[in-house]
């Protein structure tokens, strides 16, 4: 575990109940600066609910979330974002009616004047490799490209922590490889939490993996240990294989 005095993100006792169903039960989670963490688990394990509690889209029934020591439990998503958390959601949330450039511009424009924001947008688009389609309407793009647009927008926010929910979903092999490359590069300067199903992809990027099952953390360890763990195979990989 990281021994930082104040971790980047620290969640304690996170619990979420919907009516009689407990989706997430008393989860503790700590992430250090510039760390890359993958969250995996079968459908309904509570990953997405946990993710939404971190981003402010859901307010936890119990527990606290601290970002660099400051309590952000139950804050609005825009307040969470303003602390320096960039979020890519599971279903791509992009501005379909705007161009790629406009999408990224709006992200950069929160912190910067229009001129600077335009420069940052162009740099980010270049970085993610979307320059060729920068003038296209996002609604007209293929699924993989839309995912990248969303990642570019998140990057243009200049966050310290990126939360990526299934960034490789719906991508072909080539695209998955490029995305993993992109993530590793981002990780040079920023922390990331990646929720993912694709084991191939996990192997490409992961160092530490947290496994969710039935609303709790089953195991949290480095990627090789986790992937060779028998109970993980039982609850998750076994089902995937079938």
């Amino acid at each position, binding site marked *: 575990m990281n021994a930082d005095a104040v971790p980047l993100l620290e969640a304690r006792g996170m619990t979420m109940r919907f009516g009689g169903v407990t989706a997430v039960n008393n989860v503790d989670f700590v992430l250090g600066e510039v760390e890359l963490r993958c969250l995996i688990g079968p459908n309904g394990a509570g990953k997405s609910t946990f993710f939404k509690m971190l981003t402010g889209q859901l307010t936890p029934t119990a527990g606290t979330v601290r970002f660099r020591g400051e309590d952000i439990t139950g804050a609005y998503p*825009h307040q969470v*974002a303003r602390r320096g958390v*960039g979020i890519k*959601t599971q279903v791509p949330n992009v*501005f379909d*009616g*705007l161009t790629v450039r406009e999408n990224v511009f*709006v992200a950069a*424009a929160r912190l910067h004047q229009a001129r600077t924001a335009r420069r940052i947008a162009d740099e980010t688009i270049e970085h993610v490799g979307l320059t060729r389609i920068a003038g296209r*309407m996002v609604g007209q793009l293929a699924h993989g490209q839309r995912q990248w647009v969303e990642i570019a927008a998140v990057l243009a926010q200049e966050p310290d922590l990126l939360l990526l929910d299934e960034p490789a979903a719906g991508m072909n092999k080539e695209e998955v490889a490029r995305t993993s490359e992109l993530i590793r590069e981002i990780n040079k300067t920023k922390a990331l939490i990646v929720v993912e199903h694709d084991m191939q992809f996990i192997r490409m990027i992961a160092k530490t993996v947290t496994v969710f099952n039935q609303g709790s953390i089953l195991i949290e360890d480095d990627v090789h240990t986790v992937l060779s763990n028998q109970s993980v195979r039982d609850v998750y990989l076994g089902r995937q294989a079938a």
Partner: protein
Amino acid sequence: MAGAIASGWASFAAMLLAGLVLMFGLPHVFDLFGLLQMTVFVAMAVLALSQGFIWGYGGIMSFGQSAFFGLGGYTYAVAVMNLGDSTGAVALAIALPAAFAALLGYFMFYGRISDAYVGVVTLTVTVILFNVFNSTAGDWYTIGNAPLGGFNGMPSVPPLNIPGHPDEPLDPGQLWYAAMGSLILVYVLLRGVLASRFGRVVVAIRENETRAMLLGYDPRLYKLLTFTLGGGIAGLAGCLFTNWGSFISPTAFSLAQSAQIIIFVLVGGLGTLLGPILGAVAIQYMVTLIGAQQKVDGNLIVGVVLIGFVLLVPQGVVPVVRNVLQRLFVRTPRGGTAPVASEARP
């Protein structure tokens, strides 16, 4: 269609020029009646712009722009009757509806009322205002020396005057300049707003509220500001309307009025600024023509036109025309690929 946040300096300059040409040219072409008629059309075009802005760009479905329109009209009437000079009255006629919109907007957006219910709440508030103003017939409903008059409304409202000179009222010809000038100003203002960072965010929120929020923008605040601006513009429209007819009555708050504004925007084209203006002028001209004949019931004609419109030109006139023009221009060089709008932006 929705992506055209602003399509460049060229189109802006062309629009501005066209506006100025109409402003100074029409008095030479039209007789006094034609000019008066255009004045009321233009006043309603300002109203249509307010709806077109908050709905087409802000994504706020207000069923109650007529509430701000009516408030603007009444505020102007009451203020000018008490103040004498019209300058402060105009300012109030914009400020009060804007303030009311801000209050209502705070209640709705910060109350996390969902999109659909924004429509219902605005509709309901409008009906309340309609009822309240309708029941002000009694003697005790008098503000200063301005009786509200209930269902009959307030007749003989003094017209605009040269600022600072209450004894120099504008004649109908001058009123035209005031109205058309206001329309141009509002148009320029909205183009400016939309081209600004604020405008981009407003459109972004319309496109995807969650994403905007995840980027750190507070949609509630942006919607509130958009709604407030729309309320102020609708108030200005009400003020112009009151000036044109020298009267204001509770029908300004009526459901029919609210629906009419929505129709202006839809017919002209949602997500454009030119569309609502053209829609307002065209529909009103049509209604005026209908009243001059007695063969077919007026409602029947308007109704059939609307139904036909939805089935044949659902996007509204301006987007359709724009697409046709773009296809004409872009087809030859690019062949089959879909043209992309808004590349010529500044």
